[in-house]
Each structure stands twice: as C-alpha cells, then as structure tokens.
C-alpha cells in the first residue's frame, strides 16, 4: 500500500524544512530506515529516513524548496500502484499524518536493565517521578526526618523498604556536604529528557527569589544580565598545556579546553551558578554540561560537552574538536547543541581582550573569554611580564546574585592560576 512521506520535525524549534538533497530519485527502490533525503532545519542539516518499503514514486518538494511540518513531500508505494488519491492531497497540509514523523533525532533510549537477563531490576530510579515506598519505611523516614527523595530503594521496582531506612540511619553524614554546602543530605536528581544530559533537581523558588526575578526582569530585557570581570594570570595554565602536549602531541589540548574543564569544576563547586531560573522554581544541575560557542558560516551554535566536570582534559579536547567540526558542516543533532547548563564563548582568537556575552536561556550564565596577551603587571613591587586573560561572566540575576557570581569567578581564577587544583 502506498504511504505518504511528510516533512518531519527534526529539531525542537523547527517549523518548516528545506530539502537540501534527495538521496533517492523517483523510481528508486527504498527500504525502511534507508536515508531518503537531507533536510535543512533552522539549526542543522538532518538526514530523513524512509519509514516504509517500496519505490519512491513521486517527489513533490524539490531540492531547495521548503515545506511546513507535516506537509506531504513524497510518496512511497508499489511500482504499479495507483497513488492518485494520495497525490491529490498535495500541497495541502497533511493534517493527520498517515505515519508518525521520523524520529531521527530522538535520543536512543538507554538500554533497559531487563535486557541483561534480570526479570526485575533491583533498583529502578523512579522514572515516572512516583516514589515507591513501603508504609513502614515511609513512617520510619518521617520519624527520623529522612528525606525519602535522598534514598535509592532496594526493594522490587525500587521500592524503599525498612532496610534502606536503617542503612540511611547508620550512614555517616555525607562528606560531599563540605564541597556542596547546599546539600545537607544526598541530593536526588531527576533524569533529563535529552539522553545523557545532566540530571537535575527542581526546588521551589523562594518568595524572595521570585521577587528578585520579577523586579529584575523588567530592567534589561527578559533576562536581567549583570557582568563580572576578572583578570587571570595564565602562565601556569599555558605551562600545563605545553607540558601535556609535550607528553603526547596527538592530544592537542588548547587553552580553551583547560578553561572548559576549570569552569566545569568550578560549576559543581558552586551549584547556585550551575542553575537556571524556571519561573516557579530554580533548577539545579548535578553535572556541568558546558556549551561551547562555535562560530559557523552564517551564525553561531553551541555544542554541549556533557558532564565536563567528570571528563578528562583529553576527553574534552577530543569532543570539542569533533563537535566543532560537525557544527561547521551543520551535522549536529539537536540533543548535541541544546540543554547546556552554562556556556563559554571565546573570542580570544580574534584578538578581543574583553567582551560581554549574551546568556543562552535558560542557562544561568555565560563566560566571555578574551585573548591571552603578555602584559606588564606588578608583583612584589616589581614590574614583571605575565600572560594575562580577561574573563567576563554574564549572570542571570534571577538565579545568580553578585556575590554568588563573584565567588564562582574567584574559584575559576584560583584554579586557572594554579591548575594543579584540578588534580587535588
């Protein structure tokens, strides 16, 4: 039976798509899953796959032409089948698509624990958001003042049971509290919808926070920016970079890679900065998913280094290179350039000493990185030459207050000037 090919939704913000190239000609055999065309969306060029088997009978939208989402763009059917009925629908919008749009950018589901032979996983984070807890465990937790959200259930289906509460009661206070002062108890993060994106937890925005947000949003446009600048001595970071690259020239670590790593490290130490304002609540992220602004021919895109806080410098360097390359050829998938928790924009290579960057909502901040240049500075009453770089952080005042941002920037400066902190 003949089936319709409609313009699929290939990015979260896409409203129409342009056929960049048909990969099949009319009369070509196609099978399900085979690439059918390349489509330019507002962000990237995406491949569209065939969703049925047969022959590409008719192309209705030619290369270079655009069609809104859901519009019939081609027909697949048997070689001798009458497709007139389907063709009569063009170019009217297919209001009820005969098939779901291809889900090429759909993140691959993480493999379910069922597939590794266990009939019932012993621990399943409550993906539905519903907490499963035995009545006894609920009562024990209430009496002991334990936040059930901080526990992983060991019962069937992740049910929190008596022994989990007993274990929590005998556990010593979490040492993480030292570096993560907001966390009195282990924090429970929710799984993000974008695969591999950082888990997050939502906390209700306090009245004060909401008032700050309401008032400040009226000041400088929808996102109330303020800016903090710090001058960083980059001699040691540069020395570290040289040292690492001397070990293995293949690594090709850049100063920017080091900045990404340092910023990610500082972000998890300052969870208030690794956050975003979400109207009724403030979302705090467990990991630092750092967006790296990459200039491309006709615009700008920010591929995301997921969980940069736990990645090594060489991993970061490799990912940045690979993502930037694909960004330039517009081959990034939506989940690769959305959902960062913080961004970095570096114009140092253009000789810019200092600039301010615009926050990419809903991120809480962005760091504008200037060029590293030798400058005379005063050290111990002597004028000496140091490699100086200026960082300017744009903060969303709805989540980040002046002192909060300043302390974060202080940490960034401290680590960049003494990169050995990365390993202690």
């Amino acid at each position, binding site marked *: 039976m003949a089936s319709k090919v409609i313009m699929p939704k290939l990015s979260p913000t896409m409203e129409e798509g342009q056929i960049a190239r048909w990969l099949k000609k009319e009369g070509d055999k196609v099978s399900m899953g085979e690439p059918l065309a390349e489509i330019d969306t507002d962000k990237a060029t995406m491949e569209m796959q065939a969703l049925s088997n047969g022959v590409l009978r008719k192309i209705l939208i030619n290369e270079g032409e655009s069609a809104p989402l859901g519009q019939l763009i081609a027909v697949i059917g048997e070689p001798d089948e009458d497709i007139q009925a389907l063709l009569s629908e063009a170019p009217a919008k297919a209001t009820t698509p005969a098939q779901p749009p291809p889900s090429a950018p759909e993140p691959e589901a993480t493999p379910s624990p069922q597939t590794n032979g266990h009939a019932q996983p012993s621990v399943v984070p409550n993906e539905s958001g519903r907490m499963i807890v*035995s009545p*006894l465990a609920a009562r024990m937790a209430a009496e002991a003042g334990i936040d059930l959200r901080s526990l992983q259930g*060991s*019962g069937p289906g992740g049910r929190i*049971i008596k*022994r989990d509460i007993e274990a929590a009661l005998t556990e010593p206070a979490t040492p993480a509290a030292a570096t993560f002062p907001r966390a009195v108890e282990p924090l429970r993060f929710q799984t993000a919808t974008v695969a591999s994106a950082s888990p997050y937890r939502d906390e209700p925005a306090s009245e004060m926070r909401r008032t700050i947000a309401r008032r400040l949003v009226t000041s400088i446009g929808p996102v109330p920016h303020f800016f903090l600048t710090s001058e960083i001595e980059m001699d040691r970071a540069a020395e570290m970079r040289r040292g690492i690259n001397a070990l293995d020239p293949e690594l090709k670590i850049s100063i920017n890679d080091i900045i990404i790593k340092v910023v990610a490290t500082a972000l998890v130490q300052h969870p208030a900065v690794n956050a975003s304002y979400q109207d009724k609540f403030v979302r705090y992220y467990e990991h630092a998913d750092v967006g790296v602004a990459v200039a491309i021919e006709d615009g700008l895109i920010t591929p995301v280094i997921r969980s940069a806080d736990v990645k090594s410098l060489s991993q970061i360097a490799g990912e940045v290179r690979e993502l930037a390359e694909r960004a330039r050829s517009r081959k990034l998938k939506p989940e690769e350039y959305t959902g960062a928790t913080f961004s970095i924009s570096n114009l140092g290579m253009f000789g810019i000493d200092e600039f301010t960057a615009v926050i990419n909502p809903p991120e809480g901040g962005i760091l504008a990185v200037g060029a590293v240049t030798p400058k005379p500075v005063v050290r111990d009453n002597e004028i000496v030459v140091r490699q100086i770089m200026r960082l300017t952080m744009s903060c969303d005042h709805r989540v980040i207050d002046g002192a909060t941002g300043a302390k974060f920037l202080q940490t960034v400066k401290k680590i960049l000037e003494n990169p050995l902190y990365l390993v202690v």
Partner: protein
Amino acid sequence: MPTITIREALNQAIREELARDERVFLMGEEVAAYDGAYKVTKGLLNEFGPKRVIDSPITELGFAGLGVGAAMVGLRPIIEFMTFNFSILATDQIINSAAKMLYMSGGQYNIPIVFRGPGGSAFQVSSQHSQAIESWFAYFPGIKVVMPSTPADAKGLLKSAIRDDDPVIFIEQERMYGNKGEVPDDPDFTIPLGVADIKRDGTDVTIVARSLMVPIALKAAEKLQEQGVSCEVIDPRTIRPLDIDTIIESVKKTNRVVLAEESHPICGINAEISSQITERAFDYLDAPIKRVSALDVPMPYAKNLENLVVPDIDRVIAAVKEVAYIE
C-alpha cells in the same frame, strides 16, 4: 504430660464433657455402634449408652435441626458431621436456625450446640470430599468457628466449645487425627475460644497459619531459621471471633506477613485477615501481605495433582522470602 493423638484428645474432651454435664449428648452418622468413621467417638456408646451417644440416619439437615431443637429446650448437643463436606446439606439449620435463634428470639433462646467433624483435604478423596469451607460459616454473625492444630488445642478448645452457650463450628483436619502431642490430663483443662497461640517466636516475618498449615509453617520456619530468617508462627485457633490483636502485635514487630491456609484464596479467611492487618497496621508493613492458599481449582483426585494444590513447605518458604526481600 501424656503424649496422645488429636483423635484421642478429641475423644477425651467429649468423654469428659459427657461425664461432666448430663445435658451433653452426641449424635451423628456412625458415631455410636461403629465408634465413629474416624474413631473419634471410640468407646463412648459403651460408656454413656444409646441415650447420650446416638447413631443418626444419613440426613444431615434432619439431625442438625434435631440438634438445634434440643439446644432450644436446654440440652447441649454435639453434632458430628462425618466430614464437613456433608455439612453443606445442613447449612440451612446451621445458618438460618442455630446462628440466628438468639437474635431472632430476642435473647430467649441460646443455642449451645457444637457441630464438629473433619474438614479440609484428606488423601485422594477428590473434589467433593476435600473442602475447607470454614469461611462459609465464619461469614455469619452468631456462629463461632474453631480449628485446632495440636492435640492439646483440640482437647482444650473442644471442651470450651461444648461449654459455650453459642453455636460452635469445630473443624478438625482429616489428615491430622494421628498427629501426636502432649496434652494436660487435668479434667478441667480448657483453652478459651477467641485466643490465638504463638506457636513459634520470631522477629523477621509473621506467618499466620491454622489447622493443617500450622505444622507446615513450623517446618518452613525451621528451615528458614537455618538461612537466618526468624519466623513467628501464629495459630489463631479460633477463626471467629478472630484474635486479630495478637496478629497485629506480631506484625508490628516483624513488619512482614505471610498468611497460609489450605482453603481457596478467593473470599477465604486470609483475605479477611489481610484486610484487617492493612486497616490496623498499614504503617508497619514493609512488604505487601502475601497469601499462600490452595490453588483456585476443585481438588483433583490424582495424587500428583493433589500435591500441587495443597500448599506445602516450599510454597511457604518462597512466600516468606518474597516478603523478606530475600534473593
């Protein structure tokens, strides 16, 4: 204390009560000349004569009604059903007459009657002769239902049942007549109705079991103890009135419950116990209440199939492990 069988314990109880109170008499099929189909009434005809120990025709509804009438005029009948499967024929007299009389006569007529006999599964007597129908009787207000699991309980509870002023359904287990145990020889030894017995102390899981399931639960508990799981085994002994307090106390201690019975699961006594636990000890439960019951099928005749239907030690162990989150 002498060690005797449940059969002998029941015989002693009836003999002692016949001797103690001349209003007590025994009636049923084959209870007199034949000494009882299961020899529970052995020697009683000789000792007390045909006015006190009476063979009835095979008319369950008839002699049950005769018993109710005798109770109304001041006697204390013990009506034996050869098995409780046959009591089904007499349910109109039991439910509509015996259970209702005190209420409907405005308190004028107590019915101090005991309907007793074996119930539950036997060995290969098939669907019509292998039924555990205690929940039928326990359903009705006005009747007490007793199910002993040891010789001492059998004796003490039957004596209390005979002395009780209300109708009592006293269900013995057909497979258990030969089970032995110590029984006090004090002629005034009785066990009050409505009081559960903790057959084994434990801390991790409460197993509520009655009748045939008690020895099975105890054996399961022994095996589980070897694996470090401590089971408390509670025998309610009386189904109605039910000593739910003892069960609740135990659940509050162990937080986990397995209910074992040899009757069908649907609308069984365990469904009732489970509901009461949920109502009264919900906040103490660490796992869903687990029932172990006979399979929901008529009892097969074939031995291998019969063995599959009646709950065994392995099924009780599996249930305990489930509620204790083991494996």
